[in-house]
């Protein structure tokens, strides 16, 4: 049986045929899309592999020229000294640890106190206003913080500590801490907010003050989340570049004196790549060895953070 519609005639058979044609096109798309999407998903894995390979490969070339023992044990980092230079990573590591430690001294107490305020004391309204404003701090480009450290914080500190150098570890450390406050506050607040209210009410019902609830009940219950946020904060501080490159100076000295100019792992990479260390020189390959050190450090902290929050998560 055929239906006529103007000049064209449709038989059921034609319609089925046409539908089948359309469907085979559809089936192709249905088959293709997951594969294309999987391909995009593998890019992230390829990126990790790429990072690992470039770092390993070029670090290997570096260690063909400089012994790994010297790299790990020598306390002198003088890459431009003489023909061979001297490559002991310790001064860069101490510089990094120094600024990171200062940043943590600033970020952890203030961040945690903010988290307690936002999660336990602030009204819903106040939290809605305060949290986004606090997070603006995290969105400011690090070069701006570097400028702020160099032109405002350092001169201010020099009034208190007269022998503070123009470049020092203290000022970038403090500013880095300020930058990290929102991260600690936000992640710790998430951890504390997920502690169920029934537990708070139980403690309040026994006559605790809000402070006692916060410090003796909520804080211990949220320990894993809070510890994970500290690990991520440390990792962030170790990897931070522009603040220390601008305000920390470029003196790789093995020191724990915060008033002196230092150099961090990241700042060294910046110094070499802005200068003109020729391709293929030992100095050129040294940035990969330093980058590898940095990568291992931060990866360890990140994995530790993931492990802590997974392993010790309290289920309610």
């Amino acid at each position, binding site marked *: 049986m055929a239906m006529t519609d103007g000049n064209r005639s449709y038989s059921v058979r034609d319609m089925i045929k046409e539908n089948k044609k359309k469907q085979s096109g559809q089936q192709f*798309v*249905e088959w293709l*899309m*997951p594969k294309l*999407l*999987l391909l*995009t*998903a593998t*890019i*992230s*894995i390829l*990126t990790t592999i*790429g*990072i690992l390979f*470039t*770092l390993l490969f070029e670090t290997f070339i570096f260690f063909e020229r400089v012994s790994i023992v010297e790299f790990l044990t020598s306390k002198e980092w003088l890459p431009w000294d003489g023909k061979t230079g001297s490559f002991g990573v310790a001064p860069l590591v101490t510089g990094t640890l120094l600024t990171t430690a200062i940043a943590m001294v600033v970020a952890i107490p*203030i961040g945690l*106190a*903010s988290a*307690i305020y*936002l999660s336990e004391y*602030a009204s819903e309204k106040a939290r809605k206003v305060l949290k986004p*404003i*606090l997070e603006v701090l995290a*969105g400011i*480009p*690090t*070069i*701006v913080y*570097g*400028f*702020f450290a*160099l*032109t405002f914080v350092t001169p201010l500190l020099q009034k208190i500590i007269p022998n503070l150098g123009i470049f020092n570890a203290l000022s970038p450390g403090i500013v880095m801490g*300020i930058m990290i*406050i929102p991260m600690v*506050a936000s992640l710790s607040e998430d951890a504390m907010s997920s502690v169920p209210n029934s537990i708070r009410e139980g403690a309040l019902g026994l006559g605790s*003050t809000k*402070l*006692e609830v916060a410090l003796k009940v909520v804080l211990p219950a949220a320990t894993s989340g809070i510890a994970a946020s500290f690990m991520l904060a440390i990792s962030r501080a170790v*990897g*931070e*570049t*522009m603040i220390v*490159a*601008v305000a920390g100076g470029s003196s790789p000295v093995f020191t724990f004196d915060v008033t002196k100019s230092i150099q961090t792992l990241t700042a060294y*990479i*910046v110094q070499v*790549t*802005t200068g003109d260390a020729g*391709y293929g020189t030992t100095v050129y390959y040294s*940035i990969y060895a330093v*980058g590898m050190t*940095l*990568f291992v450090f*931060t*990866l360890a902290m*990140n*994995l530790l953070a*993931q492990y802590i929050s997974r392993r010790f998560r309290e289920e309610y």
Partner: protein
Amino acid sequence: MEKLIDKQRVVQHMNGRLLRNNVLKFLFFLATLFGLIVLVVLLYRIFTQAIGWLNMDFLNNFPSRRPENAGIKAGLVGSLWLMVIVAPVSLILGVGTAIYLEEYAKKNRFTDFIQTNISNLAGVPSIVFGLLGLTLFVRELNLGRSILAAGLTMSLLVLPVIVVAAQEALRAVPNQLREASYGMGATKWQTIYRIVLPAAIPGILTGSILALSRAIGETAPLVVLGIPTFLAYLPRGILDTFTVMPMQIYNWTSRPQADFQNVAAAGIVVLLVVLIFMNSIAIFIRNKFQKRY
């Protein structure tokens, strides 16, 4: 007989505890304010330093050895050029990955592996991405210090942020929509493309714009790539070399003449204005289009 509860002692004791509560509450509040105070001081300092230097010349001039002639034009245009690469590349890769993980991937080891890998990538310092870009794009693929090399490096850097944002947006689309679509006879891809994706777009865009504004402010990877800070011409294609605002600011901060500090401040103001503009678009999209189901 000894009293079971000595009311006076309880009251006395209670006062101390309440006092401690109030004092610490105030301290916690101060700590929260501390960040805001620093933010205000920072902005105030930069604006007062920049005020005399911000004018049309500053926007229209190329860099110069004399601070009064220095301008940010090369960086401003360069930052826009960077977006030409970063926006499409990171969006396609990021949203594609998110759709795969949320809609197609089965719960197995491989999916877990991709997911863990993405959160680890998010924690890799940006300067390490610079080293990857230097080796892979600048040297191995011979792209030189071009917009393309820098754009690809930056795309990989912001990829994890976009993936996570897009995943959250996709997860927020309720299952009833998908079921209704299947019920009408739509196929899986049709459902994703016509129903799920449009519903998730506001969330995806909000996250992506925030990621892109991060890319605009990043300096470290570009320093490692060797992007120049001093360019007196504009790029004409994606294989040309270029400079961006943060690089120019970095250059100005490291110059000895005092006046260049003011130029740097002026540059920072322009950079912040661009970032605030992008952030307000993100907030606008979130408020305007975010539906609740």
